[in-house]
């Protein structure tokens, strides 16, 4: 596809670099922006630039935020004794939507998966252990996806947390089998958070 303007071409290239966007769609989006006023397009572009430059990670739970601590970690009404461990921030949104959980979160940033080059050191595991070591947390809820890699990570965390006096639970099995947490519907997810079960120290099903 030869475009009449190299500037247009560059814009199309950028859109097409996004996941799931082909060149045809990219061209349609770029032409759409051309029809808008320069101010509107500036606002559009600046939103991404500011997001990338100014978003930070919460120093406690590694959720996204704009200050040192995220809004959940700053909330004094939440229960210090409960900690929910999730893969990424989308899972926080899913759990928050159920309105059944009043504790704090810890975002691991993924699950252990050597095939994808992800080992324990690439995840926020040390900081999790440090949080638990402080002694205020009484229960750690593991809410990772029920895949082989999620199970493996659960087991690893269980071993790392074994020296501490803390209950380790999982959200009920059968809720999200094979699915990611974010796709589980709110009612089922909410119920399974209420009826979480003690973690069984085994990798078998």
């Amino acid at each position, binding site marked *: 596809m030869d475009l009449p303007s190299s500037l247009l071409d560059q814009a199309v290239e950028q859109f097409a670099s996004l996941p799931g966007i082909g060149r045809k769609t990219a061209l349609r989006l770029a032409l759409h922006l051309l029809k808008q006023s320069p101010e509107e397009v500036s606002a559009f572009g600046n939103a991404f630039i500011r997001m990338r430059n100014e978003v930070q990670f919460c120093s406690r739970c590694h959720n996204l935020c704009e200050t040192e601590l995220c809004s959940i970690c700053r909330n004094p009404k939440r229960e210090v004794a409960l900690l929910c461990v999730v893969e990424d921030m989308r899972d926080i949104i899913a759990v928050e939507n159920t309105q059944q959980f009043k504790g704090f979160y810890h975002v691991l940033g993924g699950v*252990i*998966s*050597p*095939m994808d*080059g992800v*080992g*324990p050191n690439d995840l926020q595991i040390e900081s999790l252990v440090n949080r638990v070591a402080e002694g205020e947390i009484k229960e750690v809820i593991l809410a990772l996806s029920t895949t*082989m*890699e999620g199970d*493996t990570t659960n*087991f*690893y965390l269980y*071993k790392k947390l074994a020296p501490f006096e803390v209950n380790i639970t999982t959200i009920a099995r059968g809720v999200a089998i094979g699915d990611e947490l974010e796709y589980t519907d709110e009612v089922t997810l909410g119920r399974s958070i209420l009826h979480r079960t003690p973690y069984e120290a085994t*990798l*078998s099903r």
Partner: protein
Amino acid sequence: MTAKKLHLQQLTLVNFKNYVEAELSFSPQVNCFVGNNGEGKTNLLDAIYYLSFCKSYFNPIDSQNIRHNEAFLLIQGNFEKGEQHEKIHCGIKRGQKKQFRRNKKEYTRLADHIGLLPLVMVSPADINLVYEGSEVRRKFIDGVVSQFNKAYLDDLLQYIRVLSHRNALLKQFAQQRMFDATSLELWDMQLDEFGSRIYQHRKAFLNDFIPLFREHYTKLSEGREVPDLEYQSKLAGASLLELLEQAREKDRVVQYTTVGIHKDDLVFRLGDYPIKKFGSQGQQKSYLIALKLAQYDYIRQQKETTPLLLLDDIFDKLDAHRVKALMNRVSSGSFGQIFITDTDRERLDRLFADIDIDCRIFNIVEGQAQHQTAENHGA
């Protein structure tokens, strides 16, 4: 024992290998594809194989089974299994996910289809079982067991995944010049879990299978040689967890997993000798046919269904009495539906001349199948 009869009534092909279009109606008993090499006899068997296993017996790359310069292929089969009618549809488009439907309903997992239409293929390519590496022989076991045991197939898929993780981890240890025992143990435990179950299933299967195999070989060879088949697995002597621990240093050096059920093997012997080195062509062929017929009996017992039997070009290197022994079994009706390919029309006529069985013959020329009327056969 009564087994459900399974038979393929009709096969429709579009752009499959060298077939532009074909529609064949089959006898529930014997069907023969006759023609010179390269005309497309075996492709018909492969199309039937596709409908059972969702893939080709010969070429695992789906798009390469599409007719040259065409965009898609289609294979459809109308089956009867007991009283049940099964319409299977397989569609492959270049660059797209394979479509596989049972009675118009698309499968979400192809593995769910395996075992619905049991089938045994006997082909000259089986000789790979003798000459190639152990992987081919493990696949033979896995192929049989998976046809009736879904949990086995799942364990196998999980095992392969754990193994890939473990091997990736060993590579990373070497690259980063580090070692973390805890990380490795996570995968060791899971290999042990899935591996032990797979080992137990393989062992149980071979316990039942080996006597069946001996019986078939003895019939084919009229008792002249004593065949032996042995399952070799290190798990026979120790648990996989122990084996992994013993092999840890070695695994770290070579950067992959050196023990486990992915190293199991089957040893083929005649008397005290491996057939690979000492068997004649005829002996090897009998050995392989006996393996496949034992597979046939085993699957029929397990599935309580008569599998389809596909015999590709098997008469060539068998001597006369071995052929006769095989045809005796065909005529006794202990098989269900059979598909045979041969280059020699007269040989087939002779073989079926004094057997009272419904036999349909198709002449295959350049990707076209023509049904020969029954009158001019066996008269």
